[in-house]
């Protein structure tokens, strides 16, 4: 296995693990962590692909993704805290005020 392939597979693994956590974990914080994994998968790809690409676009893009991740985490935790105050839980499945009323 050469280096590029290895890095790509690692990226796929991270992305899919993130996806798996998003779909299976019940706790919103766990979901948030899954999302972080997906973002890291993208970062890994960008850095790896930047190895064979002129310029530093990949790394700079990764840098901005990290900034975006910080913002998302900050906003996410804030929203989560507010929801927790109302519901005393962070399990989205237990929020039952909004659903189809037929």
């Amino acid at each position, binding site marked *: 296995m050469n280096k590029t392939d290895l890095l790509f597979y690692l990226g796929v693994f991270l992305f899919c693990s993130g996806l798996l956590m998003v779909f299976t974990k019940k706790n919103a914080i766990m979901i948030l962590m899954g999302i972080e994994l997906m973002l890291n998968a*993208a970062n890994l790809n960008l850095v790896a*692909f930047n190895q064979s690409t002129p310029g530093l676009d990949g790394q700079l*893009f990764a840098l901005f993704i990290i900034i975006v991740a910080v913002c*998302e985490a900050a906003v996410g935790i804030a929203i989560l805290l507010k929801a927790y105050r109302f519901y005393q839980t962070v399990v989205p499945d237990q929020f039952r005020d909004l659903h189809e009323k037929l």
Partner: protein
Amino acid sequence: MGLNNQLDSIYESLGYVWPELILTFSILVVLTTGLIFKEKSHVTFVLSGIALAVALIPVLITWPQQPVSLFSNMLRVDDFAAFFKVLFLIGGLLTLTITGKKKEAAEFHLLILAVVLGACLLVMSMNFVMVLLALELISLSSYLLVGFSFDRKSAEGSLKYFLFGTVATAVMIYGLSLLYGLAGTLDFSSSPFIDSLMRTQSPLLLVSCLLILAGFLFKMAAVPLHLWAPDVYEAAPTAVVAFLSVVPKLAGMAVLIKLVLSFYLFGQSVYLWPEMIAAVSIASILVGNLSALVQTNPKRMLAYSSVAQSGFMLVGLTTLQLEGIHFAIFYGAIFLLMNFLVFAVLTYYEKHGDINSVNSLSGLGRLSWFPAFSMLIGMVALTGLPPTAGFTAKLLIFSSLWSSYQETHSMILIALFLVGLLNTVVSLFFYLKIPYFLFIKEAPVGVTIKSSGFSNLLHLVLVIALIYLFLQPDLLMGWINRITFVL
């Protein structure tokens, strides 16, 4: 290019982004005044209104705008971006008008400004980095805005929107990283980008494009990424819903247009982009309309209706031709008017009581006819019947679809044509529900309704705009026809 030249060009570029500079500056001003005048929210209300109005001026006076690349081709000003900017700024102004002088925190106005700023940047973006940042500015601000009712529901809606949205963004970012590997550049309008895509038409390209488009379909609430819409619409404050159902949706559509045109490679792409978009469009129209049928909460119903409306906007894009896209833009502009009309009336009724079920609107039209009449016009426009511009918009996009069929003889276009038009009948069922309750049902005893000259004026303006654009669509269409796409 030397560093000095680059710095010079940055300095030059600043002259083209006045609206964005004004918005950014006003965000700072709103933030500081919010801290100074803590209890006087109308100060920031007035300030942000002025900012949005002032930001319109540079857009309007530079119209028509020759395409100019800014900041090393990160952004580009052209007629396309300018037209959408006008829509976003008007959308922001209308949102403030609907909210009225209701006591809202300075942060509310700040976030509205941030969404408008993000939308303006998004339509100008020519580089995936800018796309991502502008999109996040819209998304994160809107997740927070949804929570601004500060009750259980809105906290839940906000969290759900956040979780769905960030997952969609993460998927999109992963797609972007793959595309970067394939194309070697992030500048999606540049010729190296197009060239590499032409050379490597691999399955991975399709996968990455689909992952990227997912992010924007999410913003537009198109099927299958519409699941957040009903909950968020129900939970968020009504004025915010009006805002979120228009500005991010149109921004998403604008970028979708640019990206799909880019991915389509002037018709040389081996992938069936028109067919794929047509499939999303059919699904959105069907799912949106059929789900809306069974709703009793007006806001949930409008959420599904907005899913269907996204489907209609995509109809124009299906043709992947300049004309079809012009009509999609026309549809978007009309959608802004009709959606704001409907939500303006809903906000007006909300002041008199709960609007969580159509039942609570019973007979209000018999007590005060004008708001109910405006609602009727809004609903008729959303259905796409004359004499409103909603009809013209539908007529035009379906005309483009038919023309496109005559050129390609693709059966899925005919399917979309028939599904789209026949769905008008389905949609009538639920669009008519609200006027039906307003006019035909009797009001419960003791219900009174205060008429408000200000909101009547707002409704009147929107109603007249909708009818005027039906009688004379040439005016708006003339502006839109200027838009070209130089990739």
